[in-house]
């Protein structure tokens, strides 16, 4: 908009008449008006949903328009700061490509032909189909795939409906094996946000974790503090990540051999008596068995596997031992790599136990033991048939194993799955082997998608229900269990745009139509939140103003004589030797197995994160798209030269099964080993409705046709594909 003297006069007289009447005033005018002192901004606290860190936000609005998002100083995950993505949250709110009305498919599934529909028509249709499926196949034939806050609305709907079949990619495609490995060792996971005491650490170890590029707000704040305070970082990564750039030791490990390094570190620490004997005597069991099992895992052996010199392994092991217990071995987050990921996570836990760092300063701190009382609600019906989402995996988590539901959908065994409800997750980009996902979707009688943007998976749905963005809705209270207990409110900053609706409303309306209204016994979600606050002793009016309330408690973050740790394992101790794993027929002490290596001319496909994007969900956000519009394939510069590729060339990637990627730009760099290539996950959108992101960059998931299932928990290792680079054809 151009300001001439004439428009200036017009607008200023309009301002004089009362700004409240002009709801659709352009942002620039509003900011100008604010500058002139005519408008006072309002700040509304809420929390972010651009990723899963749930940072407290203060949303600044002017005359009904959100103009800026800032971190909430009282929120422990934000501490007054937001990352690039959080700062760019208004890009989602005002993305012109948002889903605007309910839509019903008029063509074949995946064809992308839709007509708009009213909410009544769309919800009636979904309810009628779900009722029909329930009558014909039973309620268990409906599955839910979900991520983030929508889960709080749609999981109760699924449970009330009578199905146990929920699948969250956050387990089998992400954190699952890490959490299971730590639970088997310490009796509990590390939580989210992870309870890392990095600011007190003398040494921090990152194994494949590229903090900084992996943008987890408060954790990266701690990371920077630790760097500034002089902690030594040992970064194990085939790629010279930003974190590696700050490391004391960068160990450019051969991919797929991390377990060998971890076992060799344990071996040296045991052999050189660098472990915390008193700590192990008090709190751990199975040390003799561990020592015996690791006797052969020498640094020389590990050198052959990992491509890290033996003396370097010894040197870093001594660094760990000498600085124990103030050592933080970061357990990672996205841990689904090679199919033996629970055991790698176990090895991380065992190493931390040898160093005595669980519950100790600079290691992992202990969670508060306070909690809020449970809210009474009508008990859900007992499903008539066993859950599909645990597969035959003895340690599958409650979040479910997504691909087991997918498999049952394809085979119809042990019983058919006929409807998928998908909320807040883009399955096509989250799950390996897209062919299987498409095949399963073909078998469905109903696919419903609830989302904000027309992501790839949404555009395969029969019925699309447009959820409003996180800045336009209430969601369940977010309870944080870190150093102390906290509760954070999600509340609307502005009313929903277009015809979009909050997730809670959609779930409740569906429940009413399915005669399950009694499971949603409140008028609005705010009523439920207010009751909950009353029960928890939280002043709701104050919460609305400050966003986050922290409950003071007397919890101690470290083990002290008065605060002995509790380990909820079989033995009640840290299990260096896992009785549970032994009982189920798995290695009680992690054992290294060699994984296939790339053939000549092939590269292992590795993927990771950009600090300005979350999964595939922000690629169309104009504020973030601008900073990283398409991903690049990182290849060692010498290899690129040999293959005749230069920086900026476009190539396509071809995997071992013949899957071919979209075109992707070459980043020839010294920052990566010669046996692998790397790209940022989440690009190569197939949905034309995402006008900025459409076909930009390559989709790593399209190349992940092969996946290695962890037999312990069912997670899918996805670093097991090999690709070749081919020059882009001129006509492509």
């Amino acid at each position, binding site marked *: 908009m151009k300001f001439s003297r004439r428009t200036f006069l017009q607008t200023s007289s309009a301002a004089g008449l009362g700004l409240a009447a002009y709801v659709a005033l352009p942002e620039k005018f509003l900011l100008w008006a604010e500058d002139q002192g005519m408008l006072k901004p309002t700040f509304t606290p809420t929390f972010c949903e651009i990723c899963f860190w749930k940072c407290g936000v203060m949303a600044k609005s002017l005359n009904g328009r959100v103009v800026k998002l800032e*971190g909430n100083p009282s929120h422990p995950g934000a501490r007054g*700061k937001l990352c690039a993505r959080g700062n760019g949250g208004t890009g989602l709110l005002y993305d012109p490509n948002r889903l605007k009305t309910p839509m019903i498919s008029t063509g074949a599934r995946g064809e992308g032909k839709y007509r708009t529909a009213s909410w009544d028509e769309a919800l009636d249709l979904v309810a009628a189909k779900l009722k029909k499926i329930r009558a014909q196949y039973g309620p268990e034939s409906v599955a839910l795939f979900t991520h983030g806050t929508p889960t709080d609305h749609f999981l109760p709907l699924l449970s009330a409906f009578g199905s146990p079949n929920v699948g969250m990619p956050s387990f089998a495609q992400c954190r699952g094996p890490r959490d299971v490995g730590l639970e088997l060792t310490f009796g509990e996971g590390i939580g989210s946000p992870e309870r890392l005491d990095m600011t007190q650490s003398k040494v921090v170890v990152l194994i494949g974790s590229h903090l*900084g590029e992996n943008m987890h707000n408060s954790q990266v704040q701690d990371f920077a503090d630790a760097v500034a305070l002089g902690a030594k970082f040992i970064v194990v990564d085939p790629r010279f990540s930003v974190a590696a750039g700050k490391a004391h030791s960068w160990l450019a490990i051969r991919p797929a051999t991390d377990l060998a390094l971890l076992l060799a570190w344990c071996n040296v620490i045991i052999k050189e008596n660098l472990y915390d004997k008193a700590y192990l005597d008090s709190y751990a069991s199975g040390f003799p068995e561990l020592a015996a099992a690791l006797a052969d895992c020498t640094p020389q052996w590990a050198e052959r596997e990992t491509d890290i010199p033996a003396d370097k392994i010894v040197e870093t092991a001594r660094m760990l031992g000498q600085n124990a217990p103030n050592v933080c071995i970061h357990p990672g987050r996205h841990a689904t790599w090679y199919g033996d990921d629970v055991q790698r996570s176990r090895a991380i836990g065992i190493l931390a136990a040898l160093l005595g760092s669980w519950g100790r300063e600079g290691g992992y701190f202990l969670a508060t033991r306070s909690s809020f009382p449970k809210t009474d609600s009508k008990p859900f019906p007992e499903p008539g048939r066993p859950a599909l989402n645990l597969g035959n995996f003895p340690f599958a988590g409650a979040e479910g194993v997504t691909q087991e539901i997918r498999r049952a959908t394809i085979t119809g065994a042990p019983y058919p799955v006929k409807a998928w409800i998908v909320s807040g997750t883009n399955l096509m980009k989250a799950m390996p082997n897209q062919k299987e996902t498409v095949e399963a979707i073909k078998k469905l009688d109903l696919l419903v998608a609830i989302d904000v943007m027309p992501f790839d998976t949404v555009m395969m749905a029969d019925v699309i229900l447009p959820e409003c963005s996180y800045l336009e809705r209430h969601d369940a209270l977010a309870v944080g269990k870190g150093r102390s207990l906290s509760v954070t409110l999600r509340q609307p900053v502005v009313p929903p745009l277009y015809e979009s609706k909050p997730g809670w409303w959609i779930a409740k309306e569906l429940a009413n139509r399915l005669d399950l209204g009694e499971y949603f016994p409140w008028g609005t979600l705010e009523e439920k939140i207010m009751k909950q606050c009353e029960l928890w002793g939280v002043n709701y009016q104050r919460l609305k103003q400050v966003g986050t309330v922290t409950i003071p408690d007397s919890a101690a973050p470290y083990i002290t004589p008065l605060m002995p740790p509790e380990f909820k394992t079989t033995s009640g101790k840290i299990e260096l030797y896992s009785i549970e794993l032994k009982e189920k027929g798995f290695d009680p002490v992690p054992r290294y197995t060699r994984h296939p290596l790339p053939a000549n001319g092939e590269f292992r496909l590795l993927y990771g994160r950009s600090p300005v994007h979350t999964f595939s969900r922000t690629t169309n956000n104009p504020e973030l798209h601008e900073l990283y519009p398409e991903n690049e394939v990182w290849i060692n510069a010498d290899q690129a030269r040999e293959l005749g590729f230069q920086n900026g060339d476009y190539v396509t990637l071809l995997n071992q099964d013949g899957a071919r990627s979209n075109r992707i730009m070459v980043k020839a760099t010294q920052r990566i080993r010669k046996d692998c290539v790397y790209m940022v996950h989440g690009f190569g959108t197939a949905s034309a409705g995402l006008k900025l992101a459409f076909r930009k960059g390559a989709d790593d998931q399209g190349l992940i046709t092969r996946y290695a299932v962890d037999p312990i928990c069912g997670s899918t290792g996805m670093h097991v594909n090999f690709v070749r680079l081919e020059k882009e054809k001129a006509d492509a």
Partner: protein
Amino acid sequence: MPKYAMVIDQRRCVACMACVVACKKENEVPPGQFRTRVLEMVEGEFPMLRMELRSELCNHCDNPPCVYNCPTGASYKSEDGPVLLKQNRCVGCKACVAACPYDARYINEDKGYADKCTFCAHRIKEGKQPACVATCIGKSRIFGDLEDPNSAVSMALRSNHHEVLLASAGTNPRVFYIKKFSKPE
């Protein structure tokens, strides 16, 4: 009169771009243009590498070539330090864009005048920190008053070796860099 300056502690920067987005939102910077940026530079050969992450913005020079080269008097050095622009006097001639050795200015095509970082002068007035500093995840960006010996900038400069960009240009920048390269092993 305060003397405002910024210190960039490069050791703390993780190149997360939070500053870049916050700046754009705070100051309505048009698409495709930036008042600040973060450079990621790597030297060496695998595996002997070192990395420098460097935030760049207007240096608010005490000897500002953009001000001297402005033919209309639009660009000026304010009393408390920031180099600012009187928008109504700017004709968009780009002399300042050419004169700036730091590539810190752009022409706002929508509005027709030159534009640049102001150290968020409007926020300073309210007692807030510049938007990039407030959101800096690594606390790499430090802002404050050089006249106050207890300000964060004064303390950071006192206790660390620091440099300015293109010192030889004689511009006397008000943005200082604390560098440290990671040591390759």
